[in-house]
């Protein structure tokens, strides 16, 4: 929502503009909504700035790692620190499905419950229909041979 507003910063957001009062007074609710939008915009811009300055973040991270290593009495080379940071960023925001287990199987069954229920209902309906059909053939005096055949099958 707020991203779209940032793309066109000049006009105020549409829904807010429509509600702007004609007089100079703003209600507390309107004021609050405008503040929310401003805060969201600010937050997004901060996020963008932080991400644009990732080199700076990496530098700080490197410093902190070096300090932490010194405090713990260990020694880390620059190459090791850089490799660790690289690994961290590689994994950051990456998604991996949990390893297969009964739990994950059940979870997959659960999230597909509607489809499974529909499928089961369809199969049950088909069986029921078949049974009714078989029974109808069986009791019919005109088609003994066919009825027997169905029963035998």
């Amino acid at each position, binding site marked *: 929502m707020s*991203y779209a507003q*940032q793309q066109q910063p000049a006009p105020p957001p549409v829904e807010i503009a429509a509600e702007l009062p004609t007089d100079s007074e703003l209600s507390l609710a309107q004021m609050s909504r405008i503040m929310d939008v401003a805060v969201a915009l600010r937050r*997004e811009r901060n996020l963008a700035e932080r*991400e644009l300055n990732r*080199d700076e973040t990496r530098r700080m991270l490197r410093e902190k790692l070096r300090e932490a290593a010194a405090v713990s009495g260990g020694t880390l080379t620059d190459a090791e620190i850089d490799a660790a940071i690289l690994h961290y960023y590689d994994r950051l*925001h990456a*998604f991996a499905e949990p390893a297969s287990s009964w*739990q994950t199987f059940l979870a997959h069954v659960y999230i597909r419950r509607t489809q499974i229920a529909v499928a089961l209902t369809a199969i049950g309906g088909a069986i029921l229909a078949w049974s009714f059909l078989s029974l109808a053939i069986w009791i019919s005096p005109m088609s003994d041979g066919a009825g027997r055949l169905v029963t035998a099958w």
Partner: protein
Amino acid sequence: MVGKNYIAGSDVLQVLEHALAHARGRGNELQNSLSQLDQVTQEAVSRRGKALLDLARHYLPEMSAQAVERTFNEVRRDLQELLLRQQRRQRELQTEWDAALDQRQQMETQLEQITAELNALVTRREELQTQLADQLLADPAFQQLSQQALTAEQALKRNEGRVAESKQEAKEKLPAYERSSLFQYLHERKYGTPEYTCRGLTKRLDGWVARMIDFPRARQSYNFLRITPELMAAEVERRRSEFTGLMEQIESIEDERSDRIGLTDVLSQGVECGKRRDELLTKIQFEQERRDRLEQELQAIESDNNEFYAQGIDRLQSFLGNMEESALEAKTRQTAERTDDEIFAEITWLNKQLQEARDNSQQLFQERAAWEEKLGGLDYIVRRFHLSEYDSQRSMFPASFDPRPHVDSYLRGEVNREGLWQALSELQRFAPTWVQERYEEQYGGRKRSSDKNDSDDNLFDSDISMVLVRVLGEIAGAALRGAVHRGMERRSPIRQKNRKTRGQPPFPRGGSFTKGRGF
């Protein structure tokens, strides 16, 4: 402008033009010799015809002799008519050729004038550009703005790199989220947001699935990957606008000072003059092609292989078919009279003369064709010299270079025209402009802009303000040099468009007034 260690391109051009005049003179001499030989041949042919007629009169009865004379007169008339037609066509072509030559001479005079005008404008441009650069460097406001703009550009470049990285990261990592049915299930249900509406057991089971895939963190990362690159791009766009604003201020200062000292006017005149020169060179090229065609036609008419000659041969053959020379010879031997022997001796002598004249003519014709080819080659070299702008005052050759041996070698047929051109172009250099001189002063001998193989950061391929690029370069120093070129390239299309709108002259490619590098 050309230092004492060099000889000017115009001096080399003079040598070429001298050789061209010499070749033209030699061609004319050969043409005159051919004309003289032609006259001799015509006389001999006429005398031989008369002698043949006398011989025929001597042997044939009165009636037949009259018939032969009448036929001979017809043949002669036909041949004369053919000759007249040939001469008329030759005259037409010659007149056209002369007109083309006059036209070309006029255009060459114009070219000389325009070249001189351009050289003067180049000198003026260099002076004013130096003056403008000094003024800009002395302006503290300009310096401050430049520093800000260059720093902004450098940050912009870094930021653009980060946006690209971020987009790449999203491209690589988002598919895992989109392929995960567990994640997509919760995401579609808006789990963890106020819009999630499930209650009771479903909520508990959804929570169980969410814990299994650490959904809150995954959703955050998913949103981050989807939205952040665009947010970053928007922020970069905003920063780009800031940079543009700074550059506009800088350009405005440059334009205002350029107008004040008269550089804008000089640029306008130079661009217009350069355009005229380029157009004139195209016209000269066109005229030359026309002359080449005329020359070819003239040569064909003068040679033995043309329509008039073929018609003449046919006509003569039909006549001589009735009066074989050998038959007449046989008849003379049979008779004891002396008159017919004398006539036949004359015919034999004339035939010998004609054969000699034909041999000489053939030799002269070949020699003249060879000179015509050399003349054409030199003409081509001179035209290419102009087109490559080697005749500009900035064009130079090493002092040790003497073009005459190369030209002589070409005239002797030891090298072809491409070989001669290569010998010239390998050694030709353009004297550095003030921009390049300053560049060399600033960066020492690391780069020599006048060197042919040096791209000089594609300086000659850019249609940007040479003053601004160099002034900013001096303000920036080595650390921000890349920012200068990138910044100028970013602004180039917009600035050119703005200048066009305001009626200001465009910045030509490489700062030159013409298509080449000489002006």
